[in-house]
């Protein structure tokens, strides 16, 4: 024998590898060993193949490639001796997986070993088959395994049972062959065989409906009896785990009961007694007992309803919740999620404990508890729950803040009983975690604020106070700046005081301070853009600070950020040169329609929302461009567009209205005729009498963007310099004019108007006709058709055809 070919012993190789100080050293040792093993394999060295494979497996565990060893496994499995087979099968399971074709070559060896007289060899084969067989192997060898289910030795029977589980999972068609043998296993006395037999039955039921029916009919009573025996069995040291005899068998039996009882009232009835016994008698001091109780609760929740048992189950969960063991609390929270669907009243009782769990130090428990609390909120407990959650929000970790904020916001929005409470809570949330609040949430807040006209003063004052303490929260600052811009005079005049509100003295310059700090300290574009607009508004409201505001704005004329520079230039120009229109420009925003906003938000076209979400304030850009330069420019531009009616006109209008892409344009249900866009512009710029109200609402004007609100603001005041009350109608003109076919808006200035009618109305479309007779030409009537898209979808390819009767 060549001493060198024997190579090192396994132990020595392991020692050598562990002694390596660097990765490079280890690689060198491994390489040497692999070379020796490869040489031995190619020389077909039988003597040390056992040891070589063991070494190879160790090397594999370290993470090195060992493909060359796969055939060795096969050779060892094929050899007659037990030690070789043992290591061969282990190598097979470790180095190969079911997806490799090499595995097929083993099928024959395994077949022979399954029929071997030595039960340990048969056991090895069953184990390997059960762990890694592929579907083809399963099909080939299923009959052998089936036969072994009735072998005389319990060791083989239990292995065969588990191997069968894998077979039926890989080849569900074979399930019917195993049903009868599996049912027979339920009568076993040997715990191991019973354990595996029960598991086989459970998996059979999951895989095949016929198996489920059969087992349910034949075995439910037997199962209940076995469970009773196990539960009442006396102490046995072999099976004992923390004082309970064979908890694993308990749990398997309960699982099978769950599967058999689910959906079947009769089976569920037979199980009630034993389930009640398990639920009440099992000791819950140690994990084993708790595991059984947990399985019992899961079973009770899944089978057909028995009121008493359910109550028992929820009580057990309640006890789990107050356990000091984190593991127990975690599983209880999991199970409570299921319980809530079945009986939410019972779970409500544990609300306080759940709130405590939200504050737990373990992240998984916190998350689960928060999900549960969210499901428990209803109108009666929303105020107290929200208070608790917001208190916690102020102190919790930042990773958790995002989740918590989102949940609180959605709770507040869904269940808020009155507007003032909603505003209060939102302000608290913004102060505590403004940076985690999503865009749509604070947009919604502003929508609500504009609609609550009696609360404007209160809101702006609360915001003012909030910004003093929590000025670093971006979102809070944005909302505050917007409100101060809109309702600035209410802030300084203490207008609209609510009963019980504390008066607060804020001078105009202090209000401007807030905005100035905001623009200086925050670096993100939307906030600073909003600040500039707010300053413009304030310059009109607070004449005393006008100069100061102008100085601030002047500073940004030189900003390197295009948006800010542009705004600064335009606003500065308005302040200095266009006093006459300034106040009209910055008139108060009309209330934004909440219902439409929320329906839009819920089901609206994502395109419009998402494209504008990112930079919500671009549009005023487009608007400002036109207001700052003389109105004549606008007209000029318009005339340009008339001559070039293709895309430019449309784009121009889109810019004007501050919608980024055409989808938003089509919200009002328009067709994209460019001609009409020009008409609208003329309309827009005709600062004369706007046409009569068509009576339609301002609904369609809204798209869920902040931009439109601001832009519409501007355009509003453009068209109705004198008549701000006609705000609604001018907005209609603006957008609805898209749908207008070849009307001649100029004529409207001078013509007679007749009452308009609603020509057609369905759930998704409304068509209104407005009539106009030109005084110069009384035989002709001008009909302006307006199309409103009432659905949240975009209309495309919308055509309007008019049929006229021949005279």
């Amino acid at each position, binding site marked *: 024998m060549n001493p060198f070919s024997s190579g090192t012993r396994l132990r020595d190789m392991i020692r050598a590898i562990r002694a390596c100080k660097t990765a490079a050293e280890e690689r060198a040792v491994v390489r040497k060993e692999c070379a020796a093993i490869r040489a031995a394999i190619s020389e077909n060295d039988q003597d040390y193949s056992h040891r070589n494979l063991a070494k190879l497996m160790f090397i594999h565990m370290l993470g090195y490639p060992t493909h060359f060893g796969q055939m060795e496994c096969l050779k060892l499995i094929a050899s007659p001796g037990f030690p070789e087979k043992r290591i061969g099968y282990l190598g097979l399971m470790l180095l190969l997986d079911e997806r490799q074709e090499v595995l097929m070559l083993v099928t024959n060896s395994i077949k022979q070993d399954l029929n071997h007289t030595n039960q340990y060899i048969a056991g090895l084969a069953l184990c390997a088959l059960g*762990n890694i067989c592929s579907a083809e192997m399963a099909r080939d060898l299923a009959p052998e395994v089936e036969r072994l289910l009735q072998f005389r030795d319990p060791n083989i029977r239990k292995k065969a049972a588990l191997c069968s589980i894998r077979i039926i999972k890989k080849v569900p068609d074979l399930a019917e062959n195993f049903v009868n043998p599996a049912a027979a296993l339920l009568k076993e006395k040997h715990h191991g065989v019973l354990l595996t037999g029960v598991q086989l039955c459970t998996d059979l039921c999951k895989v095949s409906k016929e198996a489920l029916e059969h087992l349910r009919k034949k075995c439910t009573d037997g199962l209940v009896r076995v469970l009773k025996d196990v539960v009442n069995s006396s102490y046995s040291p072999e099976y004992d785990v923390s004082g309970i005899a064979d908890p694993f068998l308990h749990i398997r039996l309960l*699982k099978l009961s769950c599967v058999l009882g689910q959906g079947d009232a009769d089976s569920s009835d037979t199980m009630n007694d034993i389930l009640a016994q398990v639920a009440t008698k099992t000791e819950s001091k140690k*994990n084993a007992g708790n595991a059984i109780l947990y399985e019992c609760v899961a079973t009770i929740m899944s089978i057909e309803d028995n009121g008493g048992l359910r109550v028992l189950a929820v009580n057990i969960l309640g006890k789990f919740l107050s356990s000091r063991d984190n593991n127990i609390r975690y599983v209880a929270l999991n199970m409570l999620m299921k319980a809530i669907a079945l009986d939410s009243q019972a779970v409500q009782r544990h609300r306080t404990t759940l709130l405590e769990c939200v504050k737990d130090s373990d992240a998984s428990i916190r998350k689960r508890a928060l999900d549960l609390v969210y499901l428990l909120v209803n109108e009666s407990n929303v105020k107290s729950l929200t208070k608790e959650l917001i208190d916690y929000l102020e102190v919790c970790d930042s990773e958790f803040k995002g989740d918590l904020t989102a949940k609180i916001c959605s709770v507040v929005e869904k269940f808020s009983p009155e507007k003032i409470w909603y505003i209060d809570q939102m302000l608290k949330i913004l102060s505590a975690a403004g940076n985690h609040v999503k865009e749509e949430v604070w947009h919604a807040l502003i929508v609500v604020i504009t609609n609550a006209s009696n609360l404007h003063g209160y809101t702006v004052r609360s915001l003012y106070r909030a910004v003093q303490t929590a000025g670093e929260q971006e979102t809070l600052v944005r909302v505050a700046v917007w409100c101060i811009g809109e309702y600035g005079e209410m802030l300084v005049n203490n207008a609209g005081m609510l009963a019980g509100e504390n008066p607060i003295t804020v001078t105009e310059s202090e209000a401007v301070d807030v905005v100035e700090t905001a623009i200086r300290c925050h670096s993100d574009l939307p906030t600073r853009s909003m600040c500039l607009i707010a300053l413009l508004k304030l310059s009109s409201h607070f004449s005393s600070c006008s100069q100061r505001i102008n100085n601030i704005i002047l500073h940004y004329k030189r900003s390197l950020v295009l948006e800010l520079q542009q705004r600064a230039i335009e606003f500065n120009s308005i302040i200095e040169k266009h006093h006459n229109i300034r106040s009209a420009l910055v008139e108060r925003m009309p209330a934004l329609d909440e219902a439409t906003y929320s329906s839009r938000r819920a089901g609206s076209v994502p395109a419009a929302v998402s494209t504008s979400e990112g930079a919500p304030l671009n549009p005023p850009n487009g608007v400002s461009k036109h207001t700052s330069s003389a109105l004549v420019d606008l007209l000029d531009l318009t005339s340009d567009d008339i001559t070039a009616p293709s895309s430019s006109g449309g784009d121009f209008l889109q810019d004007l209205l501050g919608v980024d892409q055409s989808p938003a344009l089509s919200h009002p249900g328009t067709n994209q005729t460019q001609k009409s866009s020009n008409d609208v512009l003329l309309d827009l710029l005709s600062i004369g009498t706007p046409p009569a109200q068509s009576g339609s609402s301002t609904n369609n004007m809204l798209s869920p963007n902040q931009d439109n609100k601001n832009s519409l603001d501007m355009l509003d005041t453009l068209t109705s310099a004198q008549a701000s009350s006609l705000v609604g109608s001018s907005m209609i003109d603006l957008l609805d004019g898209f749908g207008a076919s070849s009307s001649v808006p100029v004529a409207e200035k001078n013509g007679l108007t007749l009452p308009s009618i609603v020509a057609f109305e369905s759930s998704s479309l409304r068509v209104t006709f407005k009539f106009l007779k030109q005084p110069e030409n009384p035989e002709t009537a001008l009909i302006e058709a307006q199309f409103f898209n009432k659905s949240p979808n975009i209309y495309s390819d919308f055509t309007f055809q008019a049929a006229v009767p021949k005279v």
Partner: protein
Amino acid sequence: MIHFVLLISQQGKVRLAKWYSPYSQKERSKVIRELSGMILNRGPKLCKFVEWRGYKVVYRRYAGLYFCMCINHEDNELEILDIIHHFVVILDRYFGNVCELDLIFNFHKAYYILDEILIAGELQESNKKTVERLIDAQDLLVETAKEEANSISKLIAQATN
């Protein structure tokens, strides 16, 4: 079912890895890396369950070794804690106060024991004594075969000398 069993040392070294669901070699390394990162960094007071890729991974720490088992979402985590303990107690009884070194130098024996406890990701035997008896019987077979081989080779050596 249990999808895989991992034994990971404090330093992230794999001492034992048994896969009951199909994972390719590359996927296995990825899984091990991910889970090592997640589990080794968890504080001691946190619960022993980690949610990962839609599965649950239950782990228990014994001295410097983390025993991890990955189960389906609907399985009973508390039971797995006991199955892990069952495995560890049997290892302890076999090796006599088992330590990590035992598992390193006798990894193949640790695998043999695991194969008597779990097959196809399900529990095979709840009786610790039965498992011991089976392992001992198989070890005896191996010993006998080795002795026979030795005596044969002695005979051959004598004959050829």
